[in-house]
């Protein structure tokens, strides 16, 4: 009878059956990529990868990353009352914050399944499983991609939490206690990994859409080096400039119309996108990918976002509006703040009550509408097709210019030229009447670049990192509405430049240590 107690599930696979075919590998690879777009194994929700938290709002990557990088800044406030969500803009979060728990868990989850893939895709295992030829070559390439994704997820940890739980393919699965890695060591690890995978990755622009190539690794290196001084105390501006240049030289082009970068068919913007997280209204459904962007920002005007209903949540502050020559988008077309319902008059933008969606700057940047006018995938218009651009060419231009100004070499003429490429598109393939939009060498200052980054990259998850690099996130030097929970804005403790390690993780793993001040 004893044998009869060894039962196996009917539909689930054992590791051996999972990895018996190349298709099995590709489905696990899809999961590792999809860890940034989906929240679990059921779309849009129902079998979450992360347990004990709200699947739609606390476990997704894009939504969590947005909350951490944009909500504490001048670019975003939220009307809702979900748990501690207001702590973000108020710059007063604690180590028990559930959103932070989710944002710690998500990258580590993605890393953990990536490590498993690396363990299962070694040459020995492939040959033992009789996977050869083109299939084996593609799997080898994918190992480089998985290591890129692991480095990217670790970069998120580095940027938000300043250190991380550290696990690689050498660690197993169980209930052991992983080690912690310091910020400098993590920086070095990410750097070495990104350099080491160059040989495995496909050359820039040669792999199928959705998968990463060498340029993605360079772009992440450029971003990593630009912030190296914050991360480690040692500047790497020359490296930042060089890697940005490498990406630029790889043949990427700015798309002529800025607004099309954020529409439902933005998978056509391959020439500008170096790496985007793919979302689809039918096949990659989640309440926390770009579906979140189109819903959270819309209210009665949801038709202009291409969705069937608004969530009446997120807006920007007047500080973001003030960075534009006029917030209506007539001159600088990147100012997408006007819809049929909400305008940009001073009284509309001013936020009297954060909980009142009617106040604030209504951001109509992401739209689930196709530029070619065809219907989107989801006939019900609930879920968005918009892909989330992680690295775009214009960021590389901006990194070049900033790294140059911060002593990273290169030349001012190129820097100015790169900035003006961005401005030229922003003003509608011109510099506007009388070339008002064109920057001159006297404009080539760090402040201009910070402002330009906000104008070009707002709501793409850069602002907090930028403000920290400029020393403006917590200090009283730059105030915006409701900074620190005060209507007129106030400085806060500098500990808020780094998020706390969630207390529940410290409990589960005594090897982890808390950040200073928490």
């Amino acid at each position, binding site marked *: 009878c004893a044998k*009869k*107690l*060894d*039962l196996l*599930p*009917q*539909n*689930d*696979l*054992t590791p051996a059956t*999972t990895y018996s075919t190349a298709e099995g590998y590709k489905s696990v690879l899809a*999961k590792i*990529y*999809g860890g940034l*777009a*989906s929240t*679990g*194994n*059921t779309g849009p929700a129902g079998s979450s990868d992360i347990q*004990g938290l*709200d699947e739609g709002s606390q476990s997704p990557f894009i939504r969590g990353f947005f909350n951490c990088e944009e909500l504490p800044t001048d670019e975003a406030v939220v009307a*809702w*009352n*979900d*748990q*501690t969500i207001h702590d973000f803009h108020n710059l007063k979060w604690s180590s*028990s914050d*559930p959103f932070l728990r989710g944002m710690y*868990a998500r990258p*580590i*989850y993605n*890393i*953990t*399944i990536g490590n*498993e893939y690396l363990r299962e895709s070694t040459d020995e295992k492939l040959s033992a499983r009789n996977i050869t030829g083109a299939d084996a070559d593609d799997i080898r390439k994918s190992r480089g991609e998985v290591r890129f994704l692991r480095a990217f997820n670790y970069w998120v940890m580095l940027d938000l939490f300043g250190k991380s*739980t550290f696990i690689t393919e050498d660690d197993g*699965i169980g*209930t052991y206690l*992983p080690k912690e890695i310091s910020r400098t060591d993590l920086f070095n690890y990410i750097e070495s990994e990104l350099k080491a995978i160059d040989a495995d990755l496909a050359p820039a622009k040669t792999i199928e*859409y*959705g998968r990463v190539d060498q340029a993605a690794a360079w772009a992440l290196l450029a971003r990593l080096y630009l912030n190296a001084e914050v991360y480690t105390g040692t500047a790497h501006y020359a490296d930042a400039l060089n890697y940005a240049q490498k990406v630029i030289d790889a043949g990427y082009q700015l798309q002529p119309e800025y607004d099309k970068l954020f529409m439902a068919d933005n998978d056509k913007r391959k020439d500008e996108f170096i790496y985007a997280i*793919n979302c*689809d209204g*039918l*096949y990659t459904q989640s309440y926390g990918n770009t579906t979140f962007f189109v819903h959270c920002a819309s209210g009665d005007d949801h038709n202009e976002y291409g969705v*069937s209903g608004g969530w*009446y949540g997120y807006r920007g502050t007047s500080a973001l509006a003030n960075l534009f020559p006029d917030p209506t988008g007539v001159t600088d077309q990147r100012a997408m703040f006007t819809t049929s319902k909400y305008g940009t008059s001073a009284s509309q933008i001013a936020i009297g009550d954060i*909980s*009142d969606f009617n106040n604030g700057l209504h951001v109509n940047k992401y739209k689930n509408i196709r530029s070619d006018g065809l*219907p989107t995938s989801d*006939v*019900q*218009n609930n879920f968005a097709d918009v892909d989330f651009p992680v690295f775009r060419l214009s960021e590389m231009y901006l990194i070049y210019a900033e790294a140059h100004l911060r002593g990273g070499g290169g030349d001012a003429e190129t820097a100015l030229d790169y900035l003006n490429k961005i401005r030229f598109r922003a003003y509608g393939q011109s510099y506007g009447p009388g070339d008002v939009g064109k920057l001159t060498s006297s404009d080539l200052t760090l402040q201009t670049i910070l402002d330009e980054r906000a104008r070009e990259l707002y709501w793409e998850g850069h602002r907090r990192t930028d403000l920290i690099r400029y020393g403006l996130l917590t200090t009283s030097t730059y105030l915006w509405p409701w900074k620190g929970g005060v209507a007129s804005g106030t400085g806060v403790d500098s500990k808020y430049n780094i998020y706390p390690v969630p*207390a*529940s*993780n410290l*409990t*589960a*793993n*005594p090897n982890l240590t808390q950040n200073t001040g928490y």
Partner: protein
Amino acid sequence: MVTDLKDGKPIAGASVLVKGTNIGTQTKADGSFSLNAPSNATTIVISYVGYTTQELLIGSGGMNVSLVQSASTLNDVVVVAYGTRKKGDLTGSVTSVTAKDFQKGVNNSSEQLLQGKVAGLQVTSGGGSAGGGSKIRIRGGASLNASNDPLIVIDGVPVESNGLPGSANLLNTINPNDIESMSVLKDASATALYGSRASNGVIIITTKKGAKGKVKFNFNTTTSAGVVGKTVGVLNAGQIRTIINNDAAATGINTYKDLLGDANTNWQDQIYQTAMGYDNNISASGSIGNLPFRASLGYLNQDGILKTNNFKRLTSSLSLTPKFFDDHLAVNLVVKGSQTKNVFADEGAIGSAIYFDPTQPVYDQKNEGYYYGGYFEWRQLNHQGVFDSAIDLANRNPLGLLNLRNNTSTVNRLIGNIQLDYKLHFFPDLHVMVNLGLDDAKGSGNDNIDSVSATNYKTGGRKTYYQQKKQNTLADVSLFYAKELKSLNTKFDLLVGHSYQDFVTDVFNYPSFSYRPIADFNHPEKKDTIAGTEQTFYTDKPEYRLESYLSRLNVTIANKFLLTASIRRDASSKFSKDNRVGYFPAFAGAWKLKEEFFKNTTIVSDLKLRLGWGVTGQQDGIGYYSYLPRYTRSFNTGAQYQFGDAFYSYLRPEGYDANLKWETTTTSNIGLDFGFLNNRISGSLDFYKKKTKDLLSQVPVAPGANFVNLLTINVGNMEVKGFEFTLNTTPVKGPNLSWDLGFNISYNKSTITNLLQNQDPNFKGIDVSGIGGGTGNNIGKFAVGYAPYIFNVYKQVYDKQTGKPIEGLYEDINRDGIINDDDRYYYKKPAPDVILGINTQVNYKQFSLGLSAHAYLGNYMYNNFNSGATLRSIKNPINFIGNTGVNYLETGFSNAQFLSDYYVENASFLRLDNINLGYNVGKIFNNKASLRIAGSIQNVFVISKYSGLDPENASDTGVDGNIYPRPHTYSLGLNLDF
């Protein structure tokens, strides 16, 4: 002359009645009586408390009769694990309730028969839905994340009580009229023979069997009407108008004012109805030749008080209990078949009726019945600019929810077993019993939402079919050996057995279809399949098995000392080879103090001290394959990733703990059974302590160590302490008037004593008890040193002058100048400290009157309805008007303050469950039949300070959302024996 057979002394006050009449008298002090009987009378009946009633043919001269002292209830046989035992010989904590003591009135589900009858047993119905289920807890439960439900055994077959799609409650497939008795096994010495499933107690249900003799028939019929009692206190149309108009005047913004309607609708009146119920049962029992049998048929048709809700049950049962080979082989065949048909109402209508704007009409005159079936719905512009799009997140018309959804199911269930009990011809002390059992349940149904319903208009309605089967088979072989060693004045009996049980579920998944010919214009090939509902796997077949060896020894020495020792060895397929086997021992002893010290006094009729200790396990409530590394394919098409032009489904590695095993509970119990004055006062007192270790808990694991961040592993300890006291009395017992009064009280305290593998003084516990409103808000914790689900809240600050809570102002408990999560404190718990049950019955001649009530003390509830009562809920930011509770008038809060302790309320209560009045008409139809008529009121009233609808809540979390109100039910029944 009536005397005691034992000592020959006369018995005074015995009742003497002419059989079948009211004519009678009582015996005098010398035991004599005289009676003028009618000429056609043939028999008299003589009865006296504590003695067996005797019948005597009427003779002409002096009649003498000697009464035998009845053995009292101590000789009643109680069903226990794998056998029966005399009540007086029990060593464990077992309470048996027989049919005559069941809750009266209409009970759709068997467990409700026990409500308030057993100390330490908590039966809480989930609400008032027709055929709905209950939460059952014995001594508070010993688990956290694993199941806290007791094991239920019907006629020797441990049955499936977990859910089945299409069934509101699997216990409702059993007809309460077929039940003879229910035994509640509470301590480990009573339950340990059920091993790895026994930690939360066991309920053994025994159905009625036939006895040798003439075939007797019974027919009973009950008609009932359930009416809504209290509804939730919400604002009326006038109040909403005043609030909106005042707000518009103050802010100068007329957005909401313009949305006001002209109607005065009481939405809660709209959704409820009087629930009629009809229950008819007929049974025959007796023997045909040498074959004892019982057969029954039952049909129940019960409406719910929420419109459209209905439950129908057809049950049949057959038992055959023949004996062969000079009674050496006893066969016991029981088959119970049932079919239930449910019409589920969309219970979302209950919440919707509370929150829907009372200024709006039920039917939208403006839209001429075109949109949404004519029901008023909140609308907005659609893509074409037409004002016809139902607002996504708006409240839905409660009547539209009910009437535009057709959700029906059928559940067929067959429970059957055959027991062959063979007493060996050559060695009659030994008998072999084989028990083969089957529990087969199939649920299927259609959940169809009309194409014009506002909830699913975008997909053109929704049609969903579902089906699931569960099959559980059992094969037990046991040997019983009983021997009396007269020289040692000792009796013993020994049981050795082997048990094998297999549980298979067949899952069938189907996509949902639209009423439109083509649901997705982008994918015409999918025809009317609704996008995203395609299933990756159309079938699944989870299965688990259990193999056990068990043994028990009972020893009785000098009829004074009773000893029981038992052990069970369980092996379960839910765990890896290395952790599969567990041993569950138990020991118990009892000392009959009555026999020792009070043998010759009649004042003390029973006194027995019991001591018990045992180990039990728990493995329900976890996955079947949780110990195995495995990969899961994404469940539907909505979870895929795009590479190039193709989408790839996900293969996800699942979290697992290879070392998973069951949790174990060690229980110690000390009890005293007593009876005085011929057991006219009897009862028992028990103290217990349960310690659970290796709790199957879902706890945070070190990030990166596993594929999940919360993993079910064996970690944590819990302690449960308590006492139970039961008292049954018969204050009056005479020929015409008798009065029984029963009372039970139990106290239970559960404390989590550990939750971590790695101790951390700063650990604040695990979030539990999600609430409605906001997203992801939790109100409770599993925290060390506290009861499970303790509320974790902010301390509300109140205005000194008005006494009203101040919005958003809380005490800075850690005095760090910031009010954040660290300032939440542990405050009260949902489980009651004390549970009381009271039952009484008065019989006067042919009349009987019974009352039963139960009460909870020290239980608290989070009033989630009040916590959402804000201006924001009226002026909903998504551009519609909502309603809210009258609590808003108290607080005046603009925004919800979900985590305030203001909303945690004392929910202690007393509920009068039942009043019933019966009249025994007696013989009718020329003495061919006897008739009894009974009427009852159920859920008569509740006394509580709790401000919500009902302080009794079946959730463990104590979060009071919108429950299906429990109706007041009036019923009238006839019972005919012939």
